C-alpha cells in the first residue's frame, strides 16, 4: 500500500504537471493578459451564459423531406417508363403525403412496368427505400419505407448542418458553434452577438433557387382561382417583387435547380445601379441552362426562390456562358445575404426556430468575477480548516486540493469543454466535496491509532479501509453525473462535465497523491506517533 516504485512516482508527477500546464493558457487569458501565439493554446470555452451572446435552436420537419423524396421519385418513375422500349404510358401520378400512385393505360403491361420500376426502389446501400405494391390489378402504389426515410432525414440534416455552418462562418463572428441535437435539430450559438435577428434571417432562408418555364396555357381566371394546368403548379410572386399578391403557373418538371452553382456574388445591374446577384453554374449546370434557354427563346421563365417568384423575365437569347443575373427588388444587404446563402448551398429542408435566447455580456462578466471570488473564499476556508483539523495530513490534502483545481481546469482545456455558469458552481462544489476522500481516510487513521495500531499499520489500514467507501461513492456520483450529462442540455451539461472530471481528478489528487506524499514522509521521518 505504501510502497511506491520510482516509475510510479514519475508517472504520477508527469500526469499532474501536464494537466496543470494545460490550465495555464486559460488562467492567463481569464486575467485579461495575452497568451503568446507561438505556444500551444488549449482553452476552456466560456458558455453563452458567461460570455454573453445569442443562441437559437432550429428544427426541421421530416414530412418535408418525405415530400421531396416523393417528387424525385415521381420524376424518376416518369423517366424510366418513358425511356422503356416501347414506352409505357401512364395516367396522372397522384401523390398523397409521401405516397405515389398511378395507373397504366394498358393493364397488360403490368409485369413489364414492375420489372422496370423495381430497381428504383433500392437505395445506394442494401436498404430498400421504397415499397412497391400493385392494387386492383392496375394501380401502382409506391410508399416510402421507414428505413429509407430515416436515412434521408439523416442525410438532409447532415448537409443542413454543414450549410448552416458555412453561412454563419460567412458572417465572420468569432467562434460560433453549430451542433446537431437529436434527429431533427440544430443548435447554433454565437458568442458576442447581441441580436439574433440577423442570424435568424440568414438561417430562415432555405435558398432553394429554381429556374422553371412559365406555363402560358393557364387562363387568367384559372390562375386567380389557383387552378394549375396539367403538369404545372401555381407559384406566388414574392412580396417585394413588384407583383405582390399575383401568381403564375410554371411547368413542374424540366427546370434547373440552384444546387449546380459554383459561385454567387452581389453586384450591380450593368445599366443603373440596382443591386443584383450574379451566379455562375458549374459545367453540368451551364450545359443544362444553355439547353433550356436555347430551346425556349422568347418564352418567359421564372426565377423562384424558396417557393416564391422573384421575377419572370423573357429569354431574349440563349445564355451559353453559364452565368446569369438574378434581379429582384434587392437592397445591397439582402442581395448580399442571398449571395451568401446561394454560395453556401440550399438548405435541404426548411428550418424553424423553436428556441432562442440572448445573454448580455455584463451579466456574464459579473458572474465570472463573483464566481471566482466565491471559489477563492470557499477554498481558503476549506484549506484552513483542513490544516487545523489534520495537521501535516491536512496540509497534504490542501496541496492536493490546489492541484485538483488546476488539473480540473487543465483537463477541461485539453478536452476543449465549455464552462457555463452552473459549471462554475460545479467547480466550487468540487472543492467542498474533494476533501471528503481525505476526511474519510484521516478519520480512519485516527480510529486505527486509537485502537492501538502502530503508525505504519494505521496509515495503511486507513487508506485501505476508506478506499471501499470512496470507490462506491464516486461510482454512484459518476452514475448521477453521466445521466445529468445525457439528459441535460446547455448550461446543465456544463455542470455535469465539471462534476465528472472533478470525480477523477479529486480521487487522483486526494487519494493517490496524498498517499504517495504520506508514504514518503513516513519513510524519511519514521515517526513513532502521529499527530492526526
Amino acid at each position: 500500500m505504501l510502497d511506491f516504485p520510482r516509475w510510479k512516482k514519475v508517472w504520477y508527477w508527469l500526469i499532474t504537471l501536464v494537466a496543470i500546464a494545460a490550465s495555464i493558457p486559460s488562467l492567463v487569458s481569464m486575467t485579461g493578459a495575452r497568451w503568446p501565439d507561438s505556444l500551444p493554446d488549449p482553452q476552456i470555452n466560456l458558455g453563452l451564459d458567461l460570455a454573453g451572446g445569442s443562441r437559437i435552436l432550429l428544427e426541421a420537419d421530416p414530412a418535408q423531406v418525405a415530400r421531396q423524396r416523393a417528387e424525385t421519385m415521381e420524376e424518376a418513375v416518369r423517366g424510366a417508363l418513358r425511356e422503356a422500349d416501347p414506352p409505357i404510358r401512364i395516367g396522372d401520378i397522384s401523390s398523397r403525403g409521401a405516397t405515389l400512385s398511378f395507373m397504366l393505360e394498358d393493364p397488360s403491361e403490368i409485369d413489364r412496368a414492375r420489372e422496370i420500376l423495381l430497381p428504383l426502389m433500392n437505395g445506394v446501400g442494401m436498404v430498400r427505400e421504397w415499397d412497391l405494391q400493385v392494387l386492383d390489378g392496375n394501380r401502382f402504389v409506391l410508399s416510402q419505407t421507414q428505413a429509407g426515410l430515416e436515412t434521408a432525414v439523416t442525410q438532409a440534416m447532415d448537409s443542413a448542418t454543414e450549410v448552416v455552418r458555412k453561412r454563419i462562418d460567412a458572417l465572420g463572428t468569432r467562434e460560433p458553434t453549430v451542433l446537431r441535437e437529436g434527429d431533427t435539430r440544430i443548435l447554433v450559438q454565437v458568442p458576442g452577438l447581441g441580436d439574433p435577428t440577423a442570424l435568424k434571417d440568414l438561417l430562415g432562408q432555405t435558398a432553394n433557387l429554381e429556374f422553371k418555364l412559365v406555363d402560358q396555357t393557364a387562363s387568367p381566371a384559372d390562375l386567380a382561382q389557383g387552378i394549375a394546368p396539367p403538369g404545372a403548379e401555381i407559384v406566388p410572386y414574392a412580396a417585394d417583387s413588384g407583383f405582390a399578391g399575383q401568381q403564375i403557373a410554371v411547368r413542374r418538371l424540366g427546370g434547373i435547380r440552384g444546387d449546380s452553382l459554383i459561385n454567387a456574388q452581389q453586384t450591380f445591374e450593368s445599366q443603373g445601379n440596382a443591386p443584383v446577384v450574379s451566379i455562375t453554374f458549374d459545367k453540368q449546370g451551364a450545359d443544362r441552362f444553355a439547353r433550356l434557354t436555347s430551346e425556349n427563346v422568347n418564352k418567359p421563365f421564372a426565377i423562384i426562390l424558396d417557393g416564391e417568384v422573384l421575377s419572370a423575365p423573357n429569354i431574349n437569347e440563349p445564355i451559353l456562358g453559364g452565368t446569369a443575373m438574378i434581379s429582384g427588388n434587392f437592397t445591397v444587404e439582402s442581395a448580399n445575404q442571398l449571395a451568401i446563402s446561394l454560395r453556401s448551398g440550399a438548405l435541404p429542408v426548411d428550418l424553424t426556430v423553436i428556441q432562442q435566447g440572448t445573454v448580455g455580456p455584463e451579466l456574464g462578466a459579473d458572474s465570472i468575477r463573483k464566481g471566482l471570488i466565491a471559489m477563492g473564499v470557499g477554498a481558503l476556508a476549506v484549506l484552513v480548516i483542513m490544516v487545523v483539523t489534520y495537521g501535516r495530513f491536512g496540509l497534504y490534502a490542501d496541496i492536493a486540493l490546489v492541484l485538483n483545481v488546476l488539473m480540473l481546469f487543465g483537463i477541461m482545456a485539453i478536452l476543449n469543454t465549455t464552462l457555463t455558469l452552473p459549471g462554475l458552481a460545479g467547480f466550487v462544489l468540487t472543492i467542498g466535496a474533494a476533501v471528503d476522500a481525505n476526511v474519510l481516510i484521516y478519520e480512519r487513521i485516527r480510529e486505527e491509532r486509537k485502537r492501538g495500531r502502530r503508525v505504519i499499520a494505521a496509515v495503511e489500514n486507513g487508506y485501505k479501509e476508506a478506499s471501499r467507501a470512496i470507490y462506491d461513492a464516486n461510482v454512484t456520483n459518476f452514475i448521477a453525473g453521466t445521466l445529468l450529462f445525457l439528459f441535460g442540455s446547455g448550461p446543465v451539461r456544463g455542470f455535469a462535465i465539471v462534476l465528472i472530471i472533478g470525480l477523477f481528478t479529486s480521487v487522483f489528487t486526494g487519494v493517490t497523491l496524498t498517499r504517495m506524499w504520506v508514504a514518503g514522509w513516513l519513510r524519511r521521518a519514521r515517526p513513532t506517533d502521529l499527530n492526526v
Partner: protein
Amino acid sequence: MRLLKLVPDNTNIHFLKWRVPFYIVSLLLIAASLTLVFTKGLNLGVDFVGGQQIQVTFTQDQEAPVASLRERVEALGYGDPVIQRSGAENQVSVRFRLPPEIAENPEASDAMTTRVTSAITENFPGARIDDLSAVSGKVSGELFTTAMYALVLAMIAIAIYIWIRFEWQFGVGALFALFHDVVLTLGMFALFQFEFDLKIIAAILTIIGYSLNDTIVVYDRIRENMKKYRRMPLPELLDLSVNETLSRTVMTSLTLLIVLISLLVLGPASLFGFTAAITLGIFVGTYSSIYMAAPILIWLGVSSDSFVPAEGPGDRAERVTPRP
C-alpha cells in the same frame, strides 16, 4: 500542536432510539410535500412550460420597482406575466406564457418581445436587459420529460449498484433515502414557489450524489461491523456505525457548507436558487442517511449472516506486509 476535533472521541449517541418518531415525522413531511406539489404545484420556469423570459437588472435602483413594472408590462395586453425577483434585490425575471397564436408564429413572438423589452427600457432608465430566452411549448415539454427521466433513472441505477455491492435491503434503503431527499426538495420549491427550472434538476441530482456519499459511508461501516461483531443486535450495531462515522459526516458536511455559503453570499445572483437548493439538500441528505437509510435495514431484516461467505476468518488478522 493540538489539532481541532469537531466531534469528541468515542461518542455514543443513541441515534436509532428515536427512529420511530423520526420516521413518522419524515413520512408526514413526504406526504405534505407530495400534497403541496400536486395541489399548489411547482412554479415552472420557461424551460419547462415554454414561453418568453426576460431578465432585467435595474442598475440605478437599489430595489427593483416590481409593482410599476408589472403595471407597464400588463398594459401591453399580453396576458398575465409572472414577475419575480431573481437573485439580487435589483434583478427581476419577467415571464410570459405565449398565447398559442403567437407561439406558432415566430414573427409575432419576436414583435412581442421587442415591444416588451422596449417598454421596459423606455420607462425605466438604467434598466438593463440581461437575458432573453424563448422556448417553444414543444421543446419545453420534452425538457420536462427528459429531466424527470434523468432523475428517476439516476435513482434506479444507483439503487441497483448498491444492491450489487451490498445486499438488496441496502439498495432499497438507499433508494428510499433518495426518494425522501428529492420529494422534500420538491415540496420546499412548491411551498415557497421558487422558480423551478433545469438548473434545479441539476441541483437535485447533485443532492442525490452527496446524500448518497453519506449513505454509502454509513452502509460501508455497517457492513464492516456486521462482519466484525456477529452477535451484536442490529439496532446497537447501527448506532455504533453511525457514531464511528460521525466525525467524518460532520467534517464533510462542514466543508461543503463552507463553500456553499460562500457561493450563496458572494456568488452570482443567478445561481442563488441553485445553490440554496443544494444547501438545503445537504442537511436533508445527511439526516436521511442516518434516519432513513439506516433504520430501514432493521425493518427489512438484514442479518449478520449476509456478509459471512464473502470473507474468510483470516482476513481480520493483522496483516504483515514486507517493507521495502
